[in-house]
Every structure is written in C-alpha cells, then in structure tokens.
C-alpha cells in the first residue's frame, strides 16, 4: 500500500546520508572491480593484437606475465622457415628502471620493457594516444600513465637502465596498474638488460589459409621443449594470471564494502523501527497488517539501496572518465555486467539486512498508540 510505504519513509536528510553511504560502498566495489578489469584489459589488448596468431614460450610458461625462462632468439629464424608461417618475431620482455628529471627532481619507475622488431614488427604497442612507434635504438614509446608519473611527454628524454632515450610515442591499453609498458627495439632492450641473443617469446603470424592447430603441432613437433599457444588460449591464460594476484584482495575488500552497506541499511531500518514505534503502533491500531508494515520497511530499504547503488555506479563511471583524462595511472574499466552484478548483490544484501529490524516489528504493541 503506497501510503503505508510513504508513512514509513525516512526524513530526507537521514535518507540521503544512508544513500551516500551505500553509494560510497558501491563506488568502492565497482571501482575495485573496474581496476582489475582495466589491468586485465591491458594484458588482453597487448596479447591479442593483430598478427599475434601463435605464441611460443619458454618451457613451463603458458602466459605473458611473470615468467623467468628465455628462448634462443635464433629460434625465430627456424620458425619463420616452417610452412604456414608468414612471420615470426622475437619479443624480449624485461623489467627496466626508467627515470626522468623534471624541475630538478628525479622520478623513477620500474616498467615492463618490451623489446620488439621496431618499428613495425609483431608485438609492438597495441594503440597510441600520441606519437609513433620507436624506429631508432634510442627511441621509446611509453605508456601514457607511466609518462604522467615520470612527468614526461613527447620528445622528452627518459633514462632506461641509465641510458638516455627520446620519448616518441605515448601508448594506451598498456597499463597493468602495478606497472606499465615501455616499448623499444629488441636490440636496445637486450643490450640494456643483458639478454643479448635471447627472447622471452616468439610471436608467429600465420600465412593466409594456414590453420593455427596445424602450425602449432608442427612447431611443437620440431621444438619439443617450447610451449606453443594459439591466441585465444594465451589470452585466457594471461587473464587468469593477471587476476590471480588481485582477485583475493579485491574479493576481500569487496566483501567488506558490501558488508558495510548492508550494515548501514540494517542500522537505518532498525533506527526507523525504533524511532517510529508510536507511528507503527498507530498504523497497527488503525488496521494495517504486520505484512503491510514489513513490506513498507523493506520497500524503504530497497529504495535506499537501489538509489545509493545506482548513484555509486554513476559515480564510478564518472570517476573512470575523469581519471582517464586527468590521472590515467589508475585504469578503471567499468563494465555494465559487473555493475549490474554489484547492484544485484547490494540489493540482495540490503534487503536481507532490513529483515532483521523488520523482525522486531513483532515487539511493537498497538497499545503504544494510546501512550502520549
């Protein structure tokens, strides 16, 4: 009954405080999930780029992140000669120290150095925000978030493992949250990292009409000590690996966020029941059923949770846009599916939490209506 529900509404100031609390909690949860998705997206954007049909890895490695083995760089020449292979390029991945000097201060970051056959070999930057790919040994393309943290832009100089290089490109989709990518020619990265003649991966582009399973089997048969993965499998494995480090922490914080919102709603409805006992007693005396009152209170709880949740989701989207423009260091990728999932979770928890104070309705005596 609409008027019963209206009679049980909180006063606006109190309601907006609760909405603000729920909105903050949902913003926290959605932003955390979006951060994970943003980092994961960067891995996917790089690994799934055009032309990377097969990935050859050192023994035991089945993903792009966190591996320590290497391959002989000459393996690329052998692979290139196999039927069905259009191109095979070396990728050398090594952590590098990148620093800059700005207004007398020195900034330093440890970045994912990606050495590839610059400027147009396989495994280069997936997308540019500005500039171009490096074409000389002393040129680099840098993730734009890393560039911001280092305080550099196009044509500025950065020091990679102590050696100066000019920034010629700013890349996007290359931010893993905890670190970012820097691209340079493989020869330069090899010289800087001491991995001359080595490769972290070999990327294979298939010839038109060639089938990935056939070529992968061929490579596996010829070089039994290496791993060979098609693009979809390598993407999935890399995503799994990217999430493995974050998911437990994010899940823990998300549970705390949802729990905080649920407790807030329960507290609010509890306060509503306790502070409006006289009105509840009047409603009971006038003939309202306990079911009507419970329905009104749960409706109020749902209203607050939905309003707060939707507000939080909107703020998360706004935050993602603002961060992308102002502070791209934190890559938020807000997904509709994640948002709906979080909202559903908030509504379920908020509604369940309101059941506890609603159960206390049984303690309201209609006779309280007569007590002045």
């Amino acid at each position, binding site marked *: *009954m609409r*008027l*019963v529900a*209206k*009679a*049980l*509404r909180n*006063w606006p100031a109190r309601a907006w405080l609760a909405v603000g609390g729920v909105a903050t909690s949902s913003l926290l949860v959605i932003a955390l999930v979006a951060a994970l998705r943003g980092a994961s997206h960067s891995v996917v954007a790089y690994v799934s780029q055009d032309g990377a049909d097969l990935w050859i890895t050192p023994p035991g490695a089945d993903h792009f992140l966190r591996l320590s083995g290497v391959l002989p760089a000459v393996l690329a020449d052998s692979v290139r000669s196999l039927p069905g292979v259009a191109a095979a390029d070396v990728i050398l991945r090594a952590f590098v120290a990148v620093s800059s000097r700005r207004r007398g201060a020195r900034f330093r970051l440890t970045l994912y150095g990606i050495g590839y056959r610059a400027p147009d070999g396989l495994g280069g930057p997936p997308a540019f925000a500005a500039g171009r790919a490096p074409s000389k040994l002393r040129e680099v393309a840098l993730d734009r978030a890393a560039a911001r943290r280092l305080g550099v832009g196009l044509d500025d100089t950065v020091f990679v493992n102590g050696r100066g290089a000019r920034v010629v490109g700013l890349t996007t989709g290359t931010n893993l949250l905890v670190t970012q990518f820097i691209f340079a020619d493989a020869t330069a990265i090899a010289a800087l990292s001491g991995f001359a003649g080595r490769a972290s991966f070999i990327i294979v582009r298939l010839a038109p009409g060639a089938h990935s399973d056939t070529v992968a089997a061929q490579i596996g048969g010829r070089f039994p000590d290496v791993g060979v993965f098609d693009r979809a499998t390598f993407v999935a494995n890399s995503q799994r690996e990217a999430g493995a480090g974050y998911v437990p922490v994010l899940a823990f914080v998300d549970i705390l966020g949802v729990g905080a919102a649920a407790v807030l709603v329960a507290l609010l409805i509890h306060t509503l029941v306790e502070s409006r006992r*006289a*009105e509840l007693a*009047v*409603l009971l*005396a*006038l*003939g*309202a*059923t306990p079911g009507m009152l419970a329905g009104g209170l749960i409706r109020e709880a749902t209203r607050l949770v939905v309003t707060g949740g939707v507000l939080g989701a909107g703020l998360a989207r706004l935050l993602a846009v603002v961060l992308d423009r102002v502070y791209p260091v934190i890559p938020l990728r807000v997904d509709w599916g994640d948002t709906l999932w979080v909202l559903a979770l908030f509504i379920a928890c908020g509604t369940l939490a309101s059941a506890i104070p609603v159960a206390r309705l049984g303690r309201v005596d*209609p*006779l309280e*209506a*007569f007590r*002045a």
Partner: protein
Amino acid sequence: MTVLLLEGVSKTRGTGAHATRALRDASLSVASGEVVLLEGASGAGKTTLLAVAAGLVTPDAGRVVLAGRSLGDLSPAARRRHRARVVGFVFQRSNLLERLTAWENVLLMAQLAGRTAAEARGETEKVFAQLDIVHLAPRRPEELSGGEEQRVGVARALVHGPALVLADEPTGNLDGAAGRVVAEALAACSRLRGAAVLVATHDARLAPFATRKVPIVDGRLDFPPSDEQ
C-alpha cells in the same frame, strides 16, 4: 442499536509483582448516537477499556461484542479487519503520521478500512468538508496547531463511517478554544454520522457534549455514583 457491549470484562496488565488489575468485571453498553464520557483519574483503566473495546487487547474474562460480532470468536486477522471497518480512533496527541499530509492521513484510514481508491477519495473529501478543514488538507502535521491536528485526527476517525469512535483524552493537550472545537467535532460524529462515541477523559469541558457519563475507578464501572454525578 447497541454498537458496543462489554459483559463482565476483566483484564490484568503486567505479570508477577508488577501485575495490575486494569479492569474488574466491567460491563458497559453504548448505542449508536450516544456520546459516552468515561471519566476517571490516570490509571483508572480508561485506556485499557478502550483497547479492549477495540479488540487491541484480549480480556482475561468476559465478552466483547462490537458492531454485532463477538471479538472472542474472531481470529486476530479477522479482528483487525473488523476493527478497521467499524472503529475510529482519536488519540490524545492526534498521532497523525508525520510523513503524510493531513489529506493522506485521512485517506489512508479509508483505504485501511477496505474502500476502493475512488471511494476513499470521495469519503475523504466529504469528511474534510463536513468538519470545515479543507484548508488543512495539504499541510503536514508539523505545520498544524494542536487544535488543527486534533480536528484532522477526528476526520481520520470518521472518514470510513465507523459504528464506534473511541477517543482517548482527545482534549488533554489543548487549550480552551481548541478543546471546545474538538469537543464539538466529536459531538458531530454522532450527530452527523450516527456513530457511538466513547470518550475516555477527565476534562470537564467535554461534559456538555455528552449524552451519558460513566465513572471508572480502579478498573470498576459498577460502583455507586456520587452526589455530583
């Protein structure tokens, strides 16, 4: 026609050392068109008697017949439905619902009594006109004076055309003029609608509007009347 009949009703409130016999073998009959004042000091049992009459409290002994139905024979849900249809309440502090306007407070009562939306609107308009409080309709309780609140409270008690109006100290918090207006509104309940009105009070200003006075002392209604009465 008898609207309310109490026969040998007793009720003890509380338990153990805190038990109080609020009503003792109380019998009372109120007919439609009557305005009966239940007069007694605080703690005499007035409120308990109203609550028993409305079916809000089940007596330990005795029988309550309300608008032709014995409340003891009804399930709690049926008793609640019967109460919503045939009883109107006027409380000491009006007890209007603060989030609703005066109009919505009265409309809600009509809806709880089972009226359709159109019927509820029509009856609400009618009672606001009868009590000359149309101008109060859009205001919230906090925007009303004590007397205005109580007049809206009377409208809420009357809107669904109840057979019995139960009023608990309806003028207790009001000054002289406001109290008189509310007393007249209560008298109008029986005059305009033919309702039986049972008023628990110790306010002498209500006496001129009563058709009968019933004293209550220590939960008993059957003690000999004094000279004054």
